[in-house]
């Protein structure tokens, strides 16, 4: 009886509304893509024009269809979702294209010989880039050894001890350093060493100094941000146990921020590893293995790729292949570093409230 009464009561407002079929948006997009590709294949109209108008028409069509069936609010939702997805595709397209190009062209010489041999006395095909790979590792390693302690200590000063005008001015100069063009850093390092060792000097360590100038502000910024998010109540808990400030910083604050600091350092390394301009000035070009940063010229991957492309021999293909392989190696190195950074962050990262 009561159940009957309930069903008999008409609802005050309908909760039901129309909706597009579940395949609707996807079907529309795929359809638009097929039509656009067909047009490009069949006719000789401008491909970019066809693609852009296909995307615009597809978005407008989806919005209009949804508005007719589902109402204004859902239509806006679908329209904005389409807009955001298109923007994402637009942003990711160059990256995918770049990666595809480098992998497909670099693969030709991405072989055993490339990693084991240097390009000493190599004319034409053959040879490798072991000298450049080792040089990159040495120069970046020295730069890291120099800039990580300076960067972390500077960040600790700024965040834990500094106040007043000195802190403000250091923060300002770190910000300015972040914006220094890399070629200026290279010229600075070259000029510094040329003052003492005479003009025309080329050493691995000069390149390392140039890279340090670029790395330090990144390390300072990353570490400072990490120290900022270490909750203050942890510092107070440590003080309340009768622990002096410096021990609190060393044993509580830095370990808590360690995961973030390590990943910041890794990103700074990845950022400077591919630098070309400052190393072109400071370390010069060299075709043999040199592991001593304070004795003579040193090759590195970016400059190697640049030189192979700039000065090809009569037979150009082997030089271009080596350049692409060097680019691929650089990307692999940087990617490995980023992955290691992620792993370290996951391993040592602590949740901070």
């Amino acid at each position, binding site marked *: 009886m009561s159940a009957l009464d309930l069903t008999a009561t008409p609802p005050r407002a309908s909760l039901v509304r129309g909706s597009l079929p579940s395949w609707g948006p996807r079907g529309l997009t795929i359809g638009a893509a097929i039509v656009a590709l067909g047009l490009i294949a069949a006719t000789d109209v401008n491909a970019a024009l066809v693609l852009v108008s296909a995307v615009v028409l597809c978005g407008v069509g989806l919005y209009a269809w949804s508005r007719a069936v589902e109402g204004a609010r859902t239509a806006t939702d679908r329209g904005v979702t389409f807009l955001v997805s298109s923007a994402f595709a637009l942003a990711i397209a160059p990256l995918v294209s770049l990666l595809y190009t480098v992998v497909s062209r670099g693969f030709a010489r991405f072989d055993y010989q490339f990693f084991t041999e240097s390009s000493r006395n190599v004319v034409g095909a053959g040879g490798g880039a072991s000298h450049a790979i080792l040089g990159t590792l040495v120069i970046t390693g020295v730069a890291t050894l120099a800039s990580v302690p300076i960067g972390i200590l500077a960040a600790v000063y700024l965040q834990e001890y500094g106040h007043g005008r000195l802190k403000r001015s250091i923060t300002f100069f770190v910000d300015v350093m972040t914006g220094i063009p890399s070629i200026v850093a290279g010229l600075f390092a070259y000029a510094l060493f040329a003052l003492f060792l005479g003009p025309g000097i080329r050493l691995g360590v000069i390149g390392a100094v140039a890279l340090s100038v670029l790395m330090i502000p990144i390390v300072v910024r990353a570490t400072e941000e990490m120290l900022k998010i270490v909750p203050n109540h942890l510092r107070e808990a440590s003080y*309340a*146990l009768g622990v002096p400030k410096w021990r609190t910083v060393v044993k*509580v604050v830095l370990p808590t921020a360690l995961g973030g600091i390590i990943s910041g350092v890794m990103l700074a390394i990845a950022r400077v590893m591919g630098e070309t301009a400052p190393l072109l000035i400071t370390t010069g070009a060299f075709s043999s293995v040199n592991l001593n940063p304070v004795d003579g010229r040193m090759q590195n991957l970016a400059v190697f790729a640049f030189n192979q492309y700039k000065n090809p021999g009569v037979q150009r293909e082997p030089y271009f292949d080596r350049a692409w392989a060097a680019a691929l190696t650089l990307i692999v190195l940087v990617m490995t570093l980023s992955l290691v950074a992620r792993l370290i962050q996951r391993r040592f990262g602590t949740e901070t409230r």
Partner: protein
Amino acid sequence: MAEPTERSQEYMDSTEKLDRGATAPTKEGPDVTDSVATSVDVQTVLPHEGRESVATVAKRIEITDLNLYYGSFHAVKSVNMTIQPNKVTALIGSSGCGKSTFLRSLNRMHELVPGGRVDGAVIIDGQDIYASNVDPVAVRRQVGMVFQSPNPFPTMSIYENVVAGLLLNSRKTKKPALDEIVERSLRGANLWNEVKDRLDRPGGGLSGGQQQRLCIARATAVEPEVLLMDEPCSALDPVATLAIEDLIQQLKANYTIVIVTHNMQQASRASDVTGFFNLEQSGTPGQLVELDTTETIFSNPANKATEDYVTGRFG
């Protein structure tokens, strides 16, 4: 006028009964301190009077004309009081009246806040902790603190958290001695049975109440003489709160305890002496209005503002 007082009296009686029922089975402290605690003489808690010492390791704290500032803001005005050893002293009062600021001045944490400034004397066991030749780090080793929200160190295990005070100070302690300290402190904090099988797990994995007891164990592991607690139960549920209050009753056998609380039932249940802080209006400094035995404060306070506050008529 009479009505609210009577109501509060009834209310007090009922909470006291509840309190006895809850704490009776867990009382382990020696009988001597118990009897002292229940028969507090009003004379002994009045400022600067009653110096007769109770046989104990815990310290008496005498505060003389203490003024606290944040930059140019005068936060607490001329506090004079004596905190008795082996008693629980509760500080009550509305938000922003300076209770926590005052508490933090007792182990020189107030000056860590930028602009924090202290004027006056805090004498612990005959020594003024604000004398110019006193090392604040040494003061904090004698005056431990438990904070409002549980804050175990996230990078450390439960074991390491308990002995953090020793590890962080690199005090050389042999492993068996450390084990003993860990077990004693965790037993003292009523946490041993719950965590003894997972001492190597991170302290952040415990529940809120367990984390707070871990923090109490950490504070007691360095064997301070005074234990300050800044609203230690405000983030905890009633069951965990009861566990902490039981713990406070046991701890007062060995420590001088000062606790800031917003919970008036807690002050009436857990403390022997209660101080009421108030400010005349916002913007003026907070003051210690009244200090007396908890029983007197909650049944027959001398000051009208105290009565309004403890009976719930305070604005």
